[in-house]
């Protein structure tokens, strides 16, 4: 029967081994895969500015991006492709409260520059290789 010290070895050994594998895989992903899959060459100052605005307003508090965030408002990973620049800019720049399909969005009333930065960020997001996410609706006629 298992003794307490064997159980301790199982815990410490198992943790150590899996943690080392985890670090190795993480290193590989971050150094080799991320630059290619996210097209880091396109990560311009404007995209970074857009990310700042994205975070400053907690857009993830309603929307998801890369499937992460809240489930109150649409997934925005492919929004650039789906709606195009003009639509997104109107949504961000409007000063009058609006409610697409009855659900209110904060009227941010952004400047043209800020809205363009967010668009650049969303365009860059849309080009990341996400292993096929979001899926194409396979039952759509």
């Amino acid at each position, binding site marked *: 029967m298992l003794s*307490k010290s064997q159980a301790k070895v199982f815990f410490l050994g198992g943790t150590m081994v899996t943690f080392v594998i985890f670090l190795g895989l993480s290193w590989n992903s971050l150094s080799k895969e991320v630059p290619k899959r996210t097209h880091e060459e396109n990560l311009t100052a404007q995209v970074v500015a857009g990310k700042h605005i994205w975070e400053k307003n907690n857009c993830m508090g309603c929307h998801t991006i890369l499937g992460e965030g809240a489930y109150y408002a649409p997934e925005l990973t492919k929004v650039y492709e789906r709606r195009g620049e003009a639509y997104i800019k109107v949504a961000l720049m409007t000063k009058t409260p609006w409610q697409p*399909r009855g659900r209110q969005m904060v009227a941010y009333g952004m400047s043209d520059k800020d809205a363009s930065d967010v668009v650049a960020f969303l365009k860059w997001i849309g080009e990341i290789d996400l292993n096929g996410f*979001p899926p194409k609706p396979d039952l759509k006629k």
Partner: protein
Amino acid sequence: MKYKSQKVAYWFFAFSMLLLILQIIYGFIMAFAHLGYDNLHPVIAFNTARAVHTNLLVVWLLSGFMGAAYYIIPEEAEYELVNVKLAYIQLITLALVGVTAVIGYHFNYWEGRKFLEIPRPLDWLVVANVLTFLGIILTTLFKGKKRTTTSLVLTMGLVFAALLYLPGMIWFDNQTMDSFFRWWVVHLWVEGVWELIMGGILAFLLIKITGVDREVIEKWLYVIVGLTFISGILGTGHHYYYIGVGKVWLIVGGIFSALEPLAFLAMALFAIAMYRKGEKKHPNKIALSWTLGTAIVSFVGAGLLGLAHTLPQVNMYTHGTLVTAMHGHLAFWGAYGMIVLAFISYSLPNLTGRKLYDSNRGVLAFWLSNIGMLGMTVAFGVAGVAQVYLERRVGLEFGDVQKEIQVHFLILIICATMFTTGIGLFIAEFIRYGQPTDEALIAATDHDA
């Protein structure tokens, strides 16, 4: 023999209960918004309510863990906390940082990173606060007469939880990197080191309540936390399927996530086995219900419902839908909410000297909150699955799908009301116990010496 410094735990629990009430209120705001009644939008927009709801959850659980640690460590180390005054200061500063953060969320002072919305300057105050806490715990443990496995596992969990907060504070220009390290905090907390904390608290409760030999309980504690880390560390991969890293995570994440329920299953079987093995019957039946309850509900909520959507083929469709909210609610409730309530139920009679542990109100609190939360989980699940089919497979517009599934939020609100009634009764009992006294602690040689 009990220790006077354990009293400080009570105030952490009281703070915890206060935040739980607030968390529930903000939950209702969101549920009503989903139902179409977002009248508070100009004052409390959805993203505010959401940030407050999840952050209060984290803080009330942490406050509960800290309280539990302040209670457990003196008893296990057989040594009074080294600096009680500092522990009170730590609680007050924790409350101040928390209040500042929550108020800030109402005025666009935050950073929109799910679960880690606290702005960077406040992050540093959190770090200082947690270091103070760890300083007190570690010094007490170091000076104490005994270093038991239970106290070491608990402390290890708390230390790693503090360390893992740091990767979340680094700024990345690249959203994928940002997300990658955000999960080091969030996932490795809840599916890693928090389980050490939970395991440590659970072991302590089982030792006290069942009277089973410490050596037996602590042996299985090692096995369980071993299973947790072996599955949980590489299980982080299930957050990396679709965020811009390679396909290797689909395989690694898929396999190790499938093993994650084993740790929870082991925990449930362990708690039940120890209960049946235990020869003495502790009179605190309510604490026993919560203790066995947390082991079982965490297996269902965190283990099984997690597995329900961590296979990459399934997650491709459920990622970023209400299915996640379904799992999230029962997982946090079962694994972490209930262990805190279990510990409060166990420790209050000892802290206050009042043995109110066979009241109907306490029993009702347990069942109403659990059945209510199960109902909420089902409502989220039905809404989530419908959303997945209509939006991800049939290809309807997001907004149209939300209209279709709106009715499930009515059911959610009904179940949440039941849940809230249960919590209300629990807190009513908490208040009825009154405040802790030195006499009570010294007299509490009781059944679990």
